[in-house]
């Protein structure tokens, strides 16, 4: 029996949530520090064992053969550490933001941070789970608190939007559950590794494989919000309280790809091989749609939300191309998007906090008032566009190298359609992303100074520090990405080569 | 001897069900329920007495007595309720008790 390290990192936030709720009445605003301390502890635990990977297992319902396990390997390390670091940093950022949002209502801080901890624990549990049922439980655990957070502290028609968010993702999760029960019925086990081994050794009829795989992938794609299943995302991400947007978009939706890579791809490799091209076309359309919609937005947070759809399209493209390099690129994009998009959402929170608006047309010329924020925002947008030496550059480079590799792979000659799709994606994606990014920077931070910008100045240091941490991380990982690639690539090689 | 009694009991059940659905007077509905219970009692007693010739089983007879006494309890509660209904509504016609939509 190994030391209980990972279970602590998930359970301590859950167990301390009621405590935080109760202390919220006494500590009011300062309860944020407590949440920060708890999440730092979890982050430290995860980072401490992420060098070599770690696995724990506890019996849960022996009668049904279900166990609770936590596993940190090359695939879950980037996801888990991204979630842990983002949530820790954003816990600090939330304090001044919530003060701005709710004022001096001590009860609100308690419930906000209690829900926040549950939400984070849900995300951590999802990426660490080793059992399908356990995975599903955590997958839903991240839904409930985020629903309440949006419905209670969001903007605009927050209740309707939260309800829409809940219904979309819950239906998606139920479809996922249906596929899990089918998998259980086929293999008789719910452990992820067990199912993978059974499916590899037994082999099932291809039609059945397609049915189960489609159900499972749809379940994940709703959470990811690819084109066609994305209706809820722009609303939810734009109207959620900004710290929560900064977790929803960079951390949560990408977890869907973790599910696809870990489960769908691991269980049903044949499905992906057969339908690789249609999926790649779907990904291409998602990228274009997200980018074009982002170009036409006037609301900063809606723009970022559409940009997330586009970025998820990048990851989709990487996964759909099904080569080691392109999937590696997808995971790098997840990290880079996580860091940069969190930075950008926090910047939009700063704009709400300082200038009192998030309409781009009402902003302008902020660079002279808040130079540090401007620099960080530029780093964020450049990271999305994939400009070296930021991490996004490596992600995009790898995805496109991988797609070219897949184009060249067929021995009989060049796959023309695939070639055209790849070239179109490469050119249009980069252009669109750089286009909306730089144009937004220009409209918000440069040009003539607007009325809203006159009054504003640099935000309090508690809001600024988290941004700087993440921006610096994005640069460091961009300069030295090898550390990540060494961890991630063996797992993906195992995944692809075994099929 | 068995068949005529069974037929009589079935007839009673039919009468009770008819009364149950056609009568709107609360006391008459309670009487229908009483008839229904008594039809069942007759069946039980008959089967207990005639099923095996020359031998009367005791448990069914006790079940009949139990059922008679429980019917008394039900009737008592029902009459108390009817009194309460009369106090609140000033009538014992079930058609006037239409505030609940069920």
């Amino acid at each position, binding site marked *: 029996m190994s030391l209980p390290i990972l279970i602590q990192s998930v359970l301590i936030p859950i167990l301390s949530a009621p405590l935080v709720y109760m202390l919220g009445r006494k500590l009011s605003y300062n309860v944020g520090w407590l949440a920060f301390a708890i999440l730092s502890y979890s982050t430290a635990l995860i980072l401490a064992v992420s060098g070599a990977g770690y696995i724990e297992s506890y019996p849960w319902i022996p009668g049904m053969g279900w166990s609770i396990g936590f596993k940190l390997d090359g695939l879950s390390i980037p996801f888990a550490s991204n979630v842990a670091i983002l949530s820790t940093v954003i816990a600090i950022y939330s304090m001044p933001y919530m003060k701005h949002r709710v004022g001096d209502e001590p009860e609100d801080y308690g419930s906000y941070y209690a829900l926040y901890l549950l939400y984070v624990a849900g995300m951590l549990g999802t990426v660490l789970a080793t059992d399908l049922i356990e995975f599903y439980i955590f997958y839903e655990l991240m839904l409930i608190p985020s629903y309440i957070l949006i419905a209670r502290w969001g903007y605009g028609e927050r209740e309707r939007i939260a309800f829409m968010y809940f219904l979309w993702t819950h239906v998606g999760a139920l479809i996922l559950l249906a596929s899990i029960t089918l998998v259980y019925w086929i293999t008789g086990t719910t452990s992820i590794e067990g199912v993978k081994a059974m499916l590899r050794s037994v082999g099932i009829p291809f039609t059945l494989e397609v049915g189960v795989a489609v159900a499972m992938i749809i379940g994940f794609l709703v959470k990811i919000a690819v084109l066609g299943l994305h209706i809820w995302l722009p609303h939810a991400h734009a109207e959620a309280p900004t710290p929560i947007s900064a977790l929803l978009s960079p951390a949560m939706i990408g977890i869907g790809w973790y599910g696809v890579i870990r489960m769908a791809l691991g269980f049903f490799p044949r499905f992906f091989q057969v339908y690789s091209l249609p999926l790649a076309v779907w990904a291409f359309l998602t990228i274009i749609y997200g980018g074009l919609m982002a170009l036409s937005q006037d609301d900063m947070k809606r723009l970022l939300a559409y940009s997330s759809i586009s970025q998820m399209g990048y990851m989709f493209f990487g996964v759909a191309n099904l080569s080691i390099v392109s999937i590696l690129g997808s995971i790098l994009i997840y990290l880079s998007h996580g860091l940069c998009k969190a930075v950008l959402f926090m910047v939009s929170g700063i704009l709400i906090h300082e200038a009192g608006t998030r309409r781009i047309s009402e902003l302008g010329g902020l660079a002279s008032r808040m130079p540090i924020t401007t620099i960080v925002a530029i780093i964020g947008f450049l990271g999305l566009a994939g400009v070296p030496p930021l991490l996004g550059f490596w992600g995009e480079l790898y995805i496109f190298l991988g797609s070219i590799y897949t184009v060249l792979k067929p021995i009989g000659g060049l796959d023309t359609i695939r070639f055209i799709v790849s070239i179109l994606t490469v050119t249009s994606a980069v252009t669109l992303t750089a286009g909306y990014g730089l144009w937004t920077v220009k409209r918000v931070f440069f040009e003539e100074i607007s009325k809203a910008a006159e009054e504003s100045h640099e935000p309090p240091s508690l809001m600024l520090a988290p941004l700087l941490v993440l921006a610096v991380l994005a640069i460091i990982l961009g300069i030295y990405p090898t550390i990540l690639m060494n961890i991630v690539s063996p797992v993906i090689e195992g995944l692809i080569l075994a099929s | 001897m068995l068949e005529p009694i069974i037929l009589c009991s079935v007839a009673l059940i039919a009468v009770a069900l008819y009364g149950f659905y056609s009568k709107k007077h609360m006391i008459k509905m309670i009487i229908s329920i009483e008839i229904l219970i008594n*039809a069942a009692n007759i069946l039980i007693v008959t089967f207990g007495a005639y099923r095996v010739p020359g031998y009367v089983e005791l448990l069914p007879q006790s079940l009949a007595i139990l059922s008679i006494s429980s019917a008394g309890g039900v009737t008592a509660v029902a009459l108390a309720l009817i009194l309460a209904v009369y106090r609140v509504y000033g009538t014992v016609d079930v058609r006037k008790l239409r505030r609940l939509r069920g």
Partner: protein
Amino acid sequence: MLVYPASSLLHSSFIVDMVSVFFILPILLVGLASSIYSTSYMSRDTGLNSYYTLLSAMILGMIGVVSAGDFFTFFLFWEIMSISSYALVAFRKDRWEPVEAGFKYLVMSSAGSALMLSGIAIIYGIAGTLNFAGIALATRTPTLVSDPWLILAISFLIVGFGIKAAIAPMHTWLPDAHPAAPSPISSLLSGVMIKTGVYGLLRFYILFQPLYAYWGMTLSILAFFTMFIGNLTAMLQTDVKRLLAYSSIAQIGYVTFALSIGTVQSISAGLLHVFNHAMMKGLLFMAAGALYHATGSRDISILEGIGRRMKLTGVLFSIGLLAIAGIPGLNGFISELLIIFASIRCELYLQTAILITNFLISVAYYLRLLQRIMLREPRSDLPEVEEAPASMIAGMVILATLCVAIGVYPGLLISMAELAGRAALDIGSYVAPILGG
């Protein structure tokens, strides 16, 4: 398995096997919680000595029903339970609603018991004994399947149990009686008493095993009808307790469906859901009662946002709502998942799809209720309210703790449910004491 007196076809007797234990446990737990809760909820009423007597009699009746070994004992306790519940529903007899609902309940339910009694009589006529095990032995001959008398008797029994369990179309008393009763009684009625009807239906598996095939068919049709009626009408309700009452009907539909599949896995899943629903619905009715106690209203639009004034009650209410909505980590999820598993195991894909649709519909209205009670700003004309008294909170905390605990660690309860599911189908060991002499 406990049999008392040891072996007898002639005496009245108790047989307590795992199935009975699985029903007795929730009866006692909800009974305990609602008695504690009553101490402050009923403090403004008079006639409390008879209230607590009736409450105890009702709990006694329910326990007797599920541990009876023959129809004599069964009917005795059935009547004790029924009569005390009539009186309890109409306990606040000076208001129009309890009186009207109580009368409706009394008429339907006592007609049901009378029909059940006729059914018992006919079965006695066929089998020659009132003892369950004896009946099981006597009806083993396959020729009985087409016996019209047996069919008639079984339809009488189905109506009798169905009225108590509120299976559609015999459910019309429930949405009136459960809201009208005092809240601790509602939580007992909805949480456990309707389950005695389910228990009766479950015992058919031992009593009439030649009829398995027809039996599953009939039950599953009734079950789907019940869950659709319950869920669809629950969406239209504006009264908290009426909404919960309709949701009970839907939940009975899920349980009945699980029983209709008739495998060990499905029956244990259904039994687990019986247990879980007792905890959740008991909690929900008590929380709704606490809101009613504080404001004097059950109208959802008046109660909007009250969860932000009565924090503790609100949180407990939310736990109940999330649990019954089948959110993972709470107990409702586990049993609903197991029902789905069991039905997929038997390759009932269409039925599973209908079931999942129903779960989805129900999530919508539970969540909307949660949103309105907990998240909205309180109405400006909401009267000043205080947190519920300690003993009411204590009653709710007992059940809420169980909801969470079972959700987090269901292993023990699942293995118990599996034993119960086996016992429900194991005719051999059920009749063994009789055969052994």
